[in-house]
């Protein structure tokens, strides 16, 4: 009896050991142990007083600037050009750019003193490799379309390259801010799967230390940086997807900087240790009309009516809590802004009469307009995880319903959305850089990003003309004509520009508040090497 009992306990003990052994065995990934050992070494040398902690909204899933835009891009990498305070491209790694008269050939000389984080020297080969890779159709880059007009990138000598375009492209210098990657790190590896993508080697002011996916990226100052060395020693980027948690961590001092929501501004401004930066962006929201998916919008009067029936001030005040501005042109924050265009101030009676002029009446008395037996009914789609866009869609749908338009709102997951098939879509665009950047590809007939298949002869010719000259007066005239034509024959119902809100610890100084930012406040780190951090008072 006793023997049996003992045997029983022995087997029980053995099986628990087995279970633990399996668990331990699974956990013993070599890679995991080495990386944590490295990061421990780095972490112990880190001082909270000299470390900026940023709570990020979206996580960089990889760190190769050729594969896509990175939130930490300006820390790890530098490109031929760099945007200045006014979002104008200036030489960075490039020392001189000369452009041929036909605007097709760019000869660029580069600095000879640029080192990558692994100590190797940056040469023209690396620049050419970067530009060739981003255009390679086998490489899964989200930036490929930006570089489509580059026909050829070639090395002239070790410190000179030449870029040949197939068509003039004034936004090229903005695109050349792409981070340069070291060619030698990719030898013998498939680009899409290269280990570099998770162990980046750049030439920016900060170098990579460690990364734990889903939580933390650690960077530290690169002492051999060719430019002005960064003032803050370490940067830690914590992935905090939830906006209320970000605000919380700002107030507890766990993080020093984060993108915040309008509803949180008041609280953060009240606190002693935090402040809120309200920065203008070029990021606007609009309703895109699709001319291919439905015939409803072919008559310009119908689109004008919808534009008149959009209460932009109400949207700015309620949906974005006043942190935005009513929009009327895609170039509203650009040098080439034309304010002398139709702004479609809220006017429902004008909207109603335009619809009537276009032949839409409620002939069967069901409350919905109709014309030749067809009802004015369409679906407005918005991405489900973007609260602002969903609210805009819901609001507009209820407003337009008052005019007898049956606008249904459909909210979908981004991965399930094909914008070019949506009758109407709440779109977000805008670039703080060259005017060509987000106009040509959106409004020029036949461009792939012209999702709504918009086409207007004046718009096409003005955009085309603006590309063929580098004279700013002439370009200004072209863009003025473009904006006028676009306002009269709207492709979008422009709603509003968003203000980027960054909650920040008062310890940080050097954030530039008058630089216009991009989508979701992108670009705040453009001058990260100039930022300073005063020592923490507590903890």
């Amino acid at each position, binding site marked *: 009896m006793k023997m049996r009992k003992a045997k*029983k306990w022995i087997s029980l003990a053995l*099986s628990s050991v087995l*279970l*633990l052994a399996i*668990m331990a065995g*699974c*956990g013993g*990934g*070599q*890679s*995991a142990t080495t*990386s944590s050992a490295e990061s*421990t070494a780095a*972490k*112990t040398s*880190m001082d*909270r007083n000299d*470390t900026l902690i940023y709570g990020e909204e*979206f*996580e960089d*899933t*990889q760190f190769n600037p050729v594969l*896509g*835009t990175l939130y930490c891009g300006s820390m790890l990498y530098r490109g031929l050009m760099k945007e200045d305070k006014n979002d104008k491209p200036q030489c960075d790694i490039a020392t001189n750019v000369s452009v041929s008269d036909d605007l097709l050939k760019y000869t660029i000389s580069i600095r000879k003193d640029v080192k990558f984080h692994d100590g190797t020297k940056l040469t023209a080969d690396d620049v050419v490799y970067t530009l060739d890779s981003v255009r390679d159709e086998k*490489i*899964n*880059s*989200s930036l*490929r*379309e930006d570089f489509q007009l580059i026909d050829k990138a070639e090395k002239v000598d070790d410190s000179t390259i030449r870029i040949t375009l197939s068509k003039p492209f004034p936004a090229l210098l903005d695109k050349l801010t792409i981070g340069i990657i070291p060619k030698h790190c990719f030898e013998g590896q498939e680009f*899409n*799967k*290269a280990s570099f*993508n*998770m162990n980046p080697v750049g030439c920016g002011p900060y170098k990579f230390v460690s990364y*734990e*996916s*889903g*939580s*933390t990226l*650690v960077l530290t100052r690169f002492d051999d940086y060719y430019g002005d060395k960064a003032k803050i020693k370490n940067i830690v980027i*914590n*992935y*905090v997807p939830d906006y209320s948690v970000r605000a*919380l*961590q700002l107030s*507890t001092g766990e993080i020093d900087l984060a993108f915040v929501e309008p509803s949180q501004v008041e609280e953060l401004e009240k606190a002693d240790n935090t402040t809120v930066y309200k920065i203008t962006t070029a990021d606007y929201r609009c309703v895109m009309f699709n001319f291919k998916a439905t015939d409803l919008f072919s008559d310009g009067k119908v689109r004008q009516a919808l534009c008149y029936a959009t209460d932009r001030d109400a949207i700015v005040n309620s949906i974005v809590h006043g942190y935005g501005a009513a929009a009327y042109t895609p170039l509203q924050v650009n040098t080439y802004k034309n304010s002398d265009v139709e702004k479609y101030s809220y006017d429902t009676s004008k909207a109603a009469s335009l619809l009537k002029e276009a032949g839409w009446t409620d002939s069967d008395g069901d409350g919905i307009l109709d014309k030749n037996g067809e009802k004015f009914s369409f679906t407005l789609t918005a991405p489900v*995880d973007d609260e602002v866009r969903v609210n805009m869609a819901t609001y507009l749908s209820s407003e337009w319903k008052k005019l007898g338009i049956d606008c249904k709102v459909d909210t979908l*997951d*981004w*991965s*399930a*959305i094909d914008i*070019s098939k949506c009758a109407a879509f709440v*779109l977000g*665009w805008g670039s703080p850089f060259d005017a060509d950047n987000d106009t040509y590809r959106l409004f020029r007939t036949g461009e*792939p*990003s012209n*999702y709504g298949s918009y086409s207007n002869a004046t718009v096409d010719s003005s955009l085309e003309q603006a590309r063929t000259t580098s004279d700013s007066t002439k370009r200004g005239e072209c863009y003025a004509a473009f904006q006028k034509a676009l306002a009269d024959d709207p492709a979008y119902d422009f709603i509003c520009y968003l203000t980027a809100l960054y909650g920040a610890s008062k310890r940080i100084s050097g954030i530039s508040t008058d630089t216009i930012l991009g*989508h979701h406040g992108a670009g705040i780190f453009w001058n990260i090497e100039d930022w300073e951090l005063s020592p923490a008072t507590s903890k």
Partner: protein
Amino acid sequence: MIKYSIKRILQSVFVLFIMSIFAYALINVAPGDPAAAIYGGQMDKLTQAERERINTNLGLDKPLVTRYLNWLSEMSNGRMGNSYANGKSVNRIIAERLPNTLLLFTVSFLLTVLLSMVVGLWAGLHPNTATDRGITITSIIVNGIPSVLVAIALIYFFSVKLSWLPSSGASSVFTEGAGDRIRHLVLPVITIILSHVGAFSRFIQEGMKDEMGSYFVTVAKANHVSQADINRGVMKNALVPFINYAGTHVPSFFSGFVVIETVFSYPGLGNMIVGAIPVKDYPVLMGGILITGIVVVISMLTVDIVELVLNPKLRKAAAK
């Protein structure tokens, strides 16, 4: 017993195989595609032509069956493919994440079992007292509160108001070591315990009550067997079905991790799976599902074997 174990292992492999077919089909039937993974926050810029180019590069233009067979043959060589989002090998991603999840599971499961044994047995030994009824009611209430709410409440009190414990992650950047890891485990573990301990202890409590009312207890009492000896026997009898009960709840721990790890930004498998779903990172998703499946199957197998060892009736049945 060895024969039985081999039989169970073979069964498990078959179950995993069938599961992989269903998982693969389900993931691929859902709308959307992984070009989104590459575009991330820049989805407005994704044109149809680029979407097709990237999906072709990833081999998604091939029929579903071909893709599954490719995945299976890679799998049989121990390779789970590469993430669509960053090209990193799924094996490595999982090697980094799995230990975190296993740690969370081991700690929370053992503590849940221990705590529910203490509470359940105690209540069972003192039937019809106020405490017994109190425990019954409390366990029903605790069981009914969604764990997300529990998690948020815990974060609010312990991280925000009191700032005693960290609200997210598995370790902090500035301090290292076991103490730091434990501090990060406290809140998620409490959340998991609270979401299971009610049901677990109720099970023991009920089992104790059933046993207390059974014929052998009456007989023992009639024969002046001491109450302590009766209690020992009753407890043992009530705990054997509990092991089986706890074992069958292992999968529910893992499905709970999907929520808990996300709320606490804990870098485990559940968090990884949640991150991979919206961006359709199929290889990561499949890897996560399969590894979770394997861990669950191993845990249940272990429970079965433990039960076999403890329960002579089952042992006899298995021998037949």
